[in-house]
């Protein structure tokens, strides 16, 4: 089989065999494959709005802030409440629940007044039900949730999430919490629901300021010593501690003291009354209770509540989208520039091209990119995104390759086969593209690999300086955000490892290609 034997000994096949036997190359390839999987996976899995509106997104308000990952509890032995969604176990029309409640009170009043006649009572009851129904019929639902709590660190917050097509539907919401020890806590979740409205009709209903004040006044100060009460109320008022955290500790409401060390375990029942601005069917609303826990997912959250895993995955796509296209484009430009310059070696064209190249090469890239990014921000208001970063890097990035390609082209030019091509009347462009450039290809590929991490790092630099598009999720933003809160290891460690591994992978690939194609280096 002449065909296969020829391909077996073809230089390309030989090169591939050498490379695949190189452990460095294979390691680099594996890391790169993981990276690409992360990027593609991130693209498919992370919702689009989280990628394009990353800086502020209503989703983040439904996540805990600065929460460690849940698996960390296995290492530290803590029992943090995970972030979960609870679906309601039962739902009924609000007027029924309300009428029932009012009747209970009324019934006690009436019996204490001595009215026990069944017919009178039932008529009064009918009356009451009729009135309540007229007032609230169809304009509200009561949802019943059950939350079984067996943790030591309470959740950061609890919120009701309502998803409906009409954003202005929800008028107000209140809730009653039935604790396992029998105590009841009543609170208005929010009187005017306009806090966090996102796209897709998500309405987050969280605690009203009124509730927080009442909690501090009625519960905490009545049950602790003044000093503890003051500290606690300060913490709650400054947003350092969520009022929710108090609800899961021992003795709340049972007349004893609030103890912030012993949690009360068991099943907490929560009734949420949702009042609507117009009559609605129960099926039109998608209601769930979001327990905004004290730990979150695989990589926790940052200080705004962004999911670090999402940022990491979306960031890997950004890193690759900046790194690879830049490396390819800059190397290509530099290669052609250098090959052309080398082909004209010694002539005026070469001297001019070389001088331009040397000057560009001697310019410090990063200060320039910073200056131009700043100019763009101040004059046009654009904050650099993927394309602008690639463009800015391209302004300078081609020069190093051009210098090397030129010197290589100079020696290739003297080869007999180039001479022969010239003698046969090949055009200049043909000689450059068909005879010189192919010889530079191994160097080209090695150089593409070695140039990629630099571009990724430039994005990180610009992000730390606050010059990049704030809505572009990236590793640099993770690092720059986490630098001030270093203890949040789940936030700062992953992007650093990602950058290190990416740099390593491309270095491995670049060096192994260089080694395989340059016999002089293989000796070492």
């Amino acid at each position, binding site marked *: 089989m002449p065909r296969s034997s020829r391909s077996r000994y073809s230089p390309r096949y030989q090169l591939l065999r050498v490379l695949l036997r190189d452990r460095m190359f294979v390691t680099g390839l594996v890391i790169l494959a993981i990276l690409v999987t992360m990027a593609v996976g991130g693209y498919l899995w992370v919702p689009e709005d989280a990628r394009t509106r990353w800086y502020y997104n209503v989703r983040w308000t439904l996540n805990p802030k600065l929460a460690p990952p849940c698996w960390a509890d296995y290492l530290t032995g803590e029992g943090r409440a995970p972030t979960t969604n609870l679906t309601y176990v039962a739902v009924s029309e609000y007027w029924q629940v309300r009428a029932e409640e009012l009747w209970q009170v009324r019934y006690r009043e009436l019996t204490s007044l001595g009215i026990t006649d069944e017919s009178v009572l039932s008529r009064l009851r009918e009356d009451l039900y009729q009135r309540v129904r007229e007032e609230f019929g169809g304009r509200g639902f009561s949802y019943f949730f059950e939350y079984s709590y067996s943790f030591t660190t309470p959740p950061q917050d609890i919120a009701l999430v309502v998803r409906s097509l009409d954003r202005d539907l929800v008028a107000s919401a209140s809730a009653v919490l039935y604790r396992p020890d029998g105590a009841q806590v009543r609170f208005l979740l929010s009187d005017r629901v306009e806090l966090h409205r996102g796209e897709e009709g998500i309405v987050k209903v969280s605690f009203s300021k009124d509730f927080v004040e009442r909690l501090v006044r009625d519960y905490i100060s009545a049950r602790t010593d003044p000093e503890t009460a003051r500290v606690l109320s300060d913490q709650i008022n400054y947003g350092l501690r969520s009022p929710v955290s108090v609800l899961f500790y021992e003795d709340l409401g049972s007349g004893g003291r609030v103890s912030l060390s012993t949690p009360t375990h068991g099943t907490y029942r929560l009734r949420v009354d949702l009042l609507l601005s117009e009559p609605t069917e129960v099926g039109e609303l998608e209601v769930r209770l979001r327990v905004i826990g004290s730990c979150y997912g695989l990589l926790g959250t940052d200080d705004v509540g962004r999911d670090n895993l999402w940022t990491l995955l979306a960031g890997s796509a950004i890193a690759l989208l900046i790194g690879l296209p830049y490396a390819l484009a800059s190397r290509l430009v530099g290669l052609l520039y250098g090959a052309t310059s080398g082909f004209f070696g010694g002539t005026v064209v070469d001297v001019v091209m070389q001088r331009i190249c040397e000057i560009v090469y*001697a310019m410090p890239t*990063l200060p320039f990119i910073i200056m131009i990014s700043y*100019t763009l921000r101040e*004059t046009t208001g654009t904050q650099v995104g993927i394309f602008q970063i690639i463009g800015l890097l391209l302004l300078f990035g081609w020069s190093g390759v051009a210098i090397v390609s030129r010197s290589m082209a100079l020696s290739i030019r003297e080869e007999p086969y180039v001479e022969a091509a010239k003698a046969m009347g090949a055009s200049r462009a043909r000689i450059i593209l068909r005879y010189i450039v192919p010889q530079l290809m191994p160097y080209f590929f090695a150089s593409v690999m070695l140039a990629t991490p630099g571009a990724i790092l430039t994005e*990180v630099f610009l992000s730390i300086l606050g010059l990049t598009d704030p809505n572009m999720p990236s590793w640099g933003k993770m690092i720059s955000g986490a630098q001030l809160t*270093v203890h949040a290891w789940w936030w700062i460690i992953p992007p650093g490892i990602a950058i290190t591994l990416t*740099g390593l992978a491309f270095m491995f690939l670049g060096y192994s290609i260089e080694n395989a194609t340059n016999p002089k280096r293989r000796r070492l």
Partner: protein
Amino acid sequence: MSGTARFFASNLANALLVIFLTVLITSTAFNFVHEKEAWGRVYEAVESEVRRFVIENPRATPEDIERYRQYRESYWISFYGLDQPIVSRIVMTTYRTLIMDFGEARILYTAYGHTKDVRSIILTAMGRTALLFTTATLLNIAFGILLGIFIASKVGTALDKAAGVLAMVTNAIPLYWFGAIMIWLLAYRLNLFPPASWRPIPPYVAENPLELVRWFAWHMFIPIVSMLILGVFSWAWSIRAVVVEKYSEDFVMVLRAKGLPERYIRYRHVLRAAAPPIVTMATLSVTGSLFGAIVSEVLFQWPGMGMLYYTALRNNDTIVVLADTYAFVVLFVIAKLLLDVVYGLLDPRIRIRR
């Protein structure tokens, strides 16, 4: 002109050309920003003046007001130089930048000598950046050479391979990330060193040179050690490669055949021959660490040029951004020029070829 002189002259000319061109480009960029800001200021000033004019002269006709407005407008436009053609403004800025006449900053820079004078801010910043990063680079080179020679004597062993892997890994770790972890570990967890590398120097320290060295050593410990850990292995690895290559050359065999002692061969001949490539690496390393400085200084709270960039960018202080870019270019070009000269001194072939 001798070859040496021509070599140095051509290098110097190239460096000056680069400085001039970069300043020209940054001045152009600066003028775009400046123009936008200046128009805003002209508009504000004219509006407030016209309002005052109307209040002070209640009987002014609309024509009077219009005339007054045009008069003030032309005054402010010429005050900010907006009536000049853009080319002459760019040339003016270029000239003023080259002689470091930057004027006043927008805000007070407390960490840079509590002043608004941009020139003195820039000079302070340059000195500090040079102090931190030159120290780190010199230490890196010194330890790198020692370690590199040691590894070169163990070519092919497991230690050699491990050093190679370590060099690649430490080279890929970003400094501003590693530094953050070092700060967390050494400053917050173990409480050994201060988390901020710069503090105003108290007078009793400034008087005593010994105290001053101790003060700097203690405060600069975390950044220097971070840079050493990340830098020294890749340094050692590169030096090992050069040294191993030189060992395989014929002149070493001749020296050995002559019976010269191994130490003599290593330091007098092999290292001497390996010096030029090492200087080339130093060029790349110094310039690289200078760019790393921009971000790392913020982390280490070291008020040099990088931190200055950060502060100026946050406060939209255009003049300081321009001045800092200029400072970076100058420092970059000077470092490169110096290393080129050293390279030329070390490798005679370079001088003669030109």
